[in-house]
């Protein structure tokens, strides 16, 4: 049943009427226009649809819209703050950690969650933490490099290259 739900999206208050049982992915991509959130598999196997809900990465293709009531959603469009890119976004650019770019939003937001729970991850930690995010172009080692760079920057407050 369609219900009106309030939540925050990329820092802004939103009220939206939609069926609570629909998947968050489609609500984000359609009614909310957040097309940076990608459909890749529809069953939580690839990670292209990862967004942050209350600062934690979730797979929006497996998440009920009704579950975000009162919560804060951040999509890739909302990660840069005040015109300033997040260190992960900068690091992905510096390392050319992408090719076709389709998995990139999910990679970056999943990495955000990884760094939130582990400020100083080893390469093995990153590999484990990113393993359920798929990339077909083969940017993997560059993605790991980028996450290491961003982790260092987040710890030190300045870029280390």
């Amino acid at each position, binding site marked *: 049943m369609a219900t009106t739900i309030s939540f925050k999206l990329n820092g802004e208050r939103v009220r939206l009427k939609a069926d609570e049982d*629909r*998947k968050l992915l*489609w609500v984000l*991509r*359609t*009614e909310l*226009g*957040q*097309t*940076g*959130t*990608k*459909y*890749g*598999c*529809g*069953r939580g*196997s*690839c990670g*292209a649809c990862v967004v942050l809900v209350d600062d934690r990465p979730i797979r929006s293709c497996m998440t009920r819209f009704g579950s975000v009531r009162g919560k804060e959603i951040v*999509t*890739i*469009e909302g*990660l*840069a703050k005040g015109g300033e*890119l997040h260190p992960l*976004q900068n690091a*992905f*650019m*510096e390392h*050319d950690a*992408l*090719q*076709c*770019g*389709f*998995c*990139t*939003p999910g990679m*970056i937001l999943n990495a955000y969650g990884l760094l939130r729970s582990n400020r100083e991850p080893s390469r093995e930690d*990153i*590999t*484990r933490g*990113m*393993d359920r*995010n*798929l*990339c*077909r*172009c*083969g*940017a*993997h*080692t*560059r*993605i*790991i490099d980028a996450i290491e760079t961003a982790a260092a920057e987040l710890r030190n407050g300045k870029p280390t290259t």
Partner: protein
Amino acid sequence: MSATDERTLEFQISEPAQVLVAQPQSRREFLKRFGGGIAIFVTFGGNLGVLEKAEAQGQSGVPTDFNAFLRIGEDGRVTCMTGKIEMGQGPITSLAQMMADEIDVPYERVDMVMGDTDLCPWDRGTWGSLTTRAFGPVLRAAAAEARAVLLEIASEKLRVPVSRLEAKDGLIFDRKNERKRITYGELAKGRPIARHLTVKPELKDVSQFRIMGQPKLRRDSLEKVTGKAKYAADIRLPGMLYAKILRPPAHGAKLKHAETSGARKVDGVRLVEDGDFIATLHELPDVAEDALARIDAKFAVPPATVNDENIHGHLARVAPGGDVAEEGGNLAKGRKLATRTVETTFFDGYVAHAPMETHAALARIEDGKCTVWASTQNPFGARDKIARAIRFSPDKVRVITPFVGGGFGGKTSNTQAVEAARLAKAVGRPVQVMRTREEEFFYDTFRPAAVVHIRSGIDSSGRMTFWDYEVLFAGERGADHFYEIPHHRTTVRPRGWSGGRGAHPFATGAWRAPANNTNTFARESQISAMAAAAGADPIEFRLKHLKDPRMIRVLKAAAKRFAWTPAATPSKRGYGVACGIDAGTYVAAIAEVAVDASSGEVEVKRVLSAQEMGIVVNPQGATIQMEGCITMGLGYALSEEVHFRGGQILDTNFHRYEIPRFSTLPKIETLLVEANDIAPQGGGEPAIVVMGAVVANAIHDATGARLKRMPMTPARVKAAMQEA
């Protein structure tokens, strides 16, 4: 320009040139569309090679008067229009480097407009690693000619002979009086200038390169890390509907009956029924999908006779007669000279493209013109196919290619674009078709299953005396060998990779370096098996049979970087080597593996790939393509295989079809071998062709077991070890 046009053109680097909807492909129309500035049309004569051949084959819409187009704006920016598309492999960067270098403007001042059939000259498609080696010379020639035109106009304006003028960074000045100068932007001001040139390429020498040869980061990454990059399914138009289409459970199944009343009850849904083409449409994609699930459809499914286990026997039975691709010497004589003969049959399964972006398209029909945003590798092919399907003239169809989320040869048939156009015509509103992952696997044009049979022999001195090679269904590319073997024959059955009637239970097609992956797996496995039979080191054995200096150089470079020490194989070290040629580029790879004897699990620990590709336009981009090839190649080598029962595809999502992951990747090393005396060659595919053999040879070196079938799953490795 409408708001929607603006939005969809966001992938361009700067503001797009003015977009008018008009007839494509005549010089007059191009000029009208682009207004001021200097427009350069180039008809490229001379050795255009592959591209020219394609055009000569009379494909529809091939321009007869020009094949490259660029514009110098009053702001001094240079816009390059090309029918090539960006699917991740980086031409948006490397083509801009070529353009900037030849026309002498700063790299940042070049804009790329790609894959728009109304704005760009005709192009056959983005595949075959042809963008750099075949289109590159055209583009560079166009830029070089444009520079000559600018010098000419500057000479008139400055009243200085051309011979005294120099062009640099978008500026032309008098060498004797540098204060006499004029910018490209100033030259472009005023009355529009159009020049049509017929040129032979007189391109800069490598020693004159300032931008080519420099490693450049991708130009499109800001859009891609911020979510601004638009892919076909991200385009939104007012009033658009999302369509879901009824699909059969198996290839070859026929719709008997469809009860659609349940779907019609869904609020806001629209149905299109046109024979067995049935679609539900809604303003919300997931509601359209729910409605589709309410259609009760009965299909007649043909009996399944083939499956992934018996397919090779079937292929051997139905293969067409042999077509000798290449032969030399006398096989019978070669056989007599052999003291040891090795005969092996190799098998390859079906492999999916599995790009992260599924096929998508949005079609709009307005004022008799159909515009389709499509994820495609060949926008012009899409345009013509759509035009035929909806009975429009091709000039009333425009295909725009936004960013493409991976292609690998799989986005060439454009059926999703045709479906979107048909539905848009039927309902009178813009319609998006985006495949589900299940549809993506089902309708993929897989890399074909194939069989390769090789007989070869060595004499008592360890030299190969004969080579008899026969490939079934993989295709011809890469079937030739490059070793010095006096008596040899290569037979291909058939030459292409599309099978033919009765061969495959579903569509097959080009998959990154088509045919060459299977052929190189077989050839290089056999060569290492011959080295083992000769008791020789596999690299020394290869060098002993090589004469081609390019291959010798790249193999030696790989061995040196790997710090290879010669040893007879199997050496128990788990080292494998493989060589290959693809798209004019030479590759040699060395891998190190460890094999768990109890489980058959293969851990690839290290892969080094050396590549000689002639002049390298963007070393950064070339390196990244090699990394991508190594990664993707490990997938088909170790885990990727489509399981099926007749026309029913059993692996339809990523939980069953296992592509490479972070945790399965080895240490990857790449090496570009400099060869500035050779024209630029292909880069998007070559490094992938060696990955099957390099892993198979490393497994053999570790265990003594020869893997003859890809993918080399733990079960197959274990079985081979028990046999060895």
